[in-house]
C-alpha cells in the first residue's frame, strides 16, 4: 500500500512536470492535459494493484500526457485580421514636409481695413435691392463650429454667434432676422462659393488674410480670435513646440493649418472637413491635439470636459464677413450693420449669449476703414 501511494506520488509529479512542459508547449491545452493526468492516475492505481514496476508507470503517464497534448499543439490558429480604426468621414493625413517660414504676408497689406458704410439709408437700400427682390439672404456657413454655427440637436436648427450676426444683416435688409437661407460650406469651399455668387455673404469664422483679400472682399472685423491648442488634460502638451512628433488635427482650407506648418519640425497633420470632426478624431485617439482659434476650441471643450485649451496666442485671427470681390456696395451695407450692432449693444448681447466661456465680454473690435 505504501509502495502504491509512493507510486501515485511519483506519477503525479511526473504528471505535474508534464503539465508544466506541456503548458509551455501548448498553453491552451491545459484542460486536455489535466484530464489526461486524471486518467493516468486511475490507470496507475489499477496497475498498482497488479504490482507493476514504478518506472514503467511514470513513463506511461508521461507518454499518455504528451500524446494527449501533442495533436492540438500542431494546429496553427488562423491569423486574426486587424481592422483600421474608425475615423471621421473624409479624414486625411498630409504627407510629411519641412516647416514653412513664419508668415510675413499679413504685413503686406492692411488686412482689417474695409469700406466705410453708406452715409444715407437710400444708398444702403439701393445696394441690397437685388437681395430684397429674392426675399432671402443667402448665407454660407457650416454646422461643425460649435458656438459660432452648429446644428442645435434639440431643435435641428442652425444656431450660433455667426448665425446671429448673419441674422442682424438680414434684419437690416428685410426687417426680420429669419429671412435667411443657409448654404452649408466646408472651409475649403468658402471662397469659391463667394466667387460663383452661390452665396451673398459668408459668416463662418473666416479669418481676414491678405491672400484672401485678393480673391474676396471682407467686412470690418466682427470678432478677433487667438489661435491656441486643444489637448487632452492628461497629455503633456503645453505649447506649440510640444506638438512636434505628435498628430495634430486641423480643417482643410483654414489659416490654422498654415500656422501649424510653421512649427519646426512640423507635426503630423491630419485634416478633416469640420472642427467637430477634429473633436471626434481627438476622442477616438486618432490625433493628440487640435490647433485653431480659441473661439472654436471653446466650442469643442464645452462638449468634452476631458479636454483643455493650452498654449500662448499663436496667431491673431480677425474674423470678417466674406463678400464677392466686386460687390463693394454690399461690403458697405454689411459694415453699416456691424457699426450698428457695435454701438447699440447687440454685439455684447450676442457675445453674452454664446461666448461667455471665453471670459467676460470685451469691447467689440474697433472698425478700421480704408476711405
Amino acid at each position, binding site marked *: 500500500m505504501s509502495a502504491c501511494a509512493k507510486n501515485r506520488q511519483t506519477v503525479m509529479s511526473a504528471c505535474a512536470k508534464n503539465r508544466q512542459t506541456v503548458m509551455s508547449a501548448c498553453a491552451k491545452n491545459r484542460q486536455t492535459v489535466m484530464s489526461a493526468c486524471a486518467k493516468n492516475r486511475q490507470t496507475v492505481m489499477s496497475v498498482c494493484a497488479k504490482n507493476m514496476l514504478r518506472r514503467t508507470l511514470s513513463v506511461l503517464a508521461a507518454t499518455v500526457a504528451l500524446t494527449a497534448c501533442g495533436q492540438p499543439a500542431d494546429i496553427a490558429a488562423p491569423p486574426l485580421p486587424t481592422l483600421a480604426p474608425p475615423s471621421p468621414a473624409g479624414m486625411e493625413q498630409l504627407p510629411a514636409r519641412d516647416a514653412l517660414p513664419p508668415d510675413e504676408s499679413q504685413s503686406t497689406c492692411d488686412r482689417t481695413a474695409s469700406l466705410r458704410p453708406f452715409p444715407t439709408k437710400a444708398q444702403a437700400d439701393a445696394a441690397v435691392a437685388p437681395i430684397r427682390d429674392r426675399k432671402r439672404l443667402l448665407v454660407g456657413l457650416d454646422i461643425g463650429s460649435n458656438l459660432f454655427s452648429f*446644428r442645435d440637436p434639440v431643435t*435641428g436648427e442652425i444656431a450660433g454667434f455667426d448665425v446671429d450676426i448673419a441674422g442682424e444683416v438680414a434684419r437690416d435688409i428685410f426687417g426680420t432676422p429669419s429671412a435667411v437661407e443657409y448654404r452649408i460650406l466646408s472651409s475649403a469651399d468658402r471662397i469659391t462659393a463667394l466667387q460663383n455668387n452661390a452665396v451673398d455673404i459668408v459668416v463662418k469664422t473666416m479669418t481676414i488674410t491678405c491672400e484672401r483679400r485678393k480673391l474676396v472682399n471682407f467686412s470690418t472685423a466682427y470678432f478677433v480670435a487667438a489661435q491656441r491648442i486643444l489637448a487632452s488634460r492628461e497629455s503633456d502638451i503645453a505649447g506649440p513646440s510640444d506638438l512636434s512628433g505628435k498628430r495634430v488635427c486641423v480643417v482643410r482650407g483654414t489659416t490654422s493649418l498654415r500656422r501649424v506648418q510653421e512649427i519646426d519640425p512640423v507635426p503630423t497633420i491630419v485634416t478633416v472637413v469640420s472642427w467637430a470632426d477634429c473633436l*471626434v478624431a481627438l476622442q477616438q485617439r486618432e490625433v493628440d491635439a487640435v490647433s485653431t482659434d480659441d473661439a472654436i476650441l471653446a466650442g469643442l471643450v464645452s462638449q468634452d470636459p476631458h479636454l483643455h485649451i493650452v498654449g500662448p496666442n499663436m496667431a491673431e485671427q480677425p474674423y470678417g464677413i466674406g463678400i464677392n470681390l466686386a460687390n463693394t456696395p454690399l461690403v458697405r451695407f454689411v459694415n453699416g450693420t456691424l457699426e450698428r450692432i457695435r454701438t447699440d449693444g447687440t454685439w455684447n448681447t450676442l457675445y453674452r449669449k454664446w461666448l461667455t466661456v471665453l471670459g467676460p465680454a470685451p469691447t467689440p473690435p474697433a472698425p478700421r476703414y480704408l476711405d
Partner: protein
Amino acid sequence: MTVELAHPSTEPLAQRTSTEPAHPRWWFVNTTPGRILTIGVILATLGILSAFAISTTINERQHQLTTVLDHTEPLAFAAGQLYTTLSVADAAASTAFIAGAEPRPVRQRYEQAITDAAVAVTRASSGLTDPPLVEMLGRINARLAVYTGLIETARTNNRMGNPVGSSYLSEASGLMQDTILPDAQRLYEATSARVDAETTASAAIPAPVIIVVAATLGFGIFAHRWLARRTRRRVNVGLVAGGLAIAVMIVWVGTALAISTAGSRAAKNTASDSLRTVTGLAITAQQARADETLSLIRRGDEDVRKRSYYQRVEQMRQQLRDYQARTDNVDTSSLAQADQLLERWRQADERINDYIAVGNYQAATQVALGTGEDASTPAFDKLNDALSQGIQESRKQLRYDILSARRVLSGTTVGGAMLSAGAALAVALGLWPRMSEYR
C-alpha cells in the same frame, strides 16, 4: 474375382504431346454459340453500365440539388438578408437622428435592423467555408460592432445637446456605406453566384448516360437482327423484353431528367434572377432613404446626397420597368404598386427639397418623417413592404423550382437501375435457349 480392365488408349503416349493444339486459341468465339455468348456478355455489361451511369448521374444531381436547398440557397439568402438589414439599419439610424427625440417606432426599427443583421451574420457564418468569404464576414461582423458603437455615441451626444453627434453619425454612415455595405454586397454576390452555378450544374445534359444507353440500345438492335438471321427465329423474346425494359427506362428517366432540368433552369433563369433583382431594389430603396435623411443633417454634402437620391430612384424605376416587362418573371403581384409608390416617394422628396430651398428645415424634416399621406415615410414604408414581400415570393419560387427538380428524380435511381439490370437478365434468359441448341 478380379476384372482386368484394358487401357482405353491404344495410341502411344508420346503422340499426345504434339506442339499443335487441338483448336486455335479463342476458337470458341468464332463459333455461333461463342458469338451468342459474347453478344450476351456485352449486352449484359452495357445494361449494367447503363444502370450504373443512370444511378450515379441521378444520385449526383439529387445530391447537388439537396446541397443547394439545404446549404447554398439558405446561405445566399442569409447573405442577402445581411446586406438588406445593414442598409435598413443605416437608413433607420439617420432617420432616428434627424427625428430629434427619436420616436419609439423609429428607434425600434433601428434596433430590429441590428438584431436582424446580427442573426443574418450568424446564419451566414454557419455555412461559409471559403476562407476569403469567411474573412469577409468576419470583417463585416467586427465593423458592425464598431458601427453600433458609433451610432450610440452619436445618439448620446445628440441627447446631451452636443453638436459633435452629427459628426459621429456621419462617421458611422461613412463606415457603413464605404466599407461594410460593399463587403456585404460582395458576399451576397459570391453566394448567390454559387447557387446559380450549382443549379446550372444540375441542368447540364447528362452525356455519359445518353452515350451508354444509346450504345446499349444500338447493340441490342444489332444483336437481335444478327440472331434473327443466324437462328431463323424472327423474334427473340428475351432480347425484345430487354429492349422494352430499356425503352421504358429511357422514357421514364428521360422525362424525369427533362422535367428536373427544366426546373433547375427555371430556378436559375427566372426565380434566382427575380430574387436578385428584387433584393437589389430593396437595398437601393434603403440607400436612397439614407441619402434622403442624411441630407437633412446638413454637413455640406446635400447636393451630393440629392444627386445620389435621384440616381438611385431612377435606377430603381428602370429596374422595375425591366422587371415587369419580362415575360418569365416570378408573379410578384406585390410589386404591382411599386412604381406608384416610388413616384409618391419622389414627390415627397421634391417637397422636402422645396422646403430646404427656402430654408425651412423644420418643415422639410416634417415631410421626411411625418406619417401624412403626402409625407415621405408612408410611401417609403409601403414600398419597402412590397419589396420585402417580393423577396419572399421570389425565394419561395426559387426553392419550389429546385425542390420539384429534385422530387421528380426520386425513384428514378432505383427504377432505372432495376430496369437496366432487368434488361440484362432478360437478354441472358433470351439467349440461353439459343446457346443450348448448340450443345
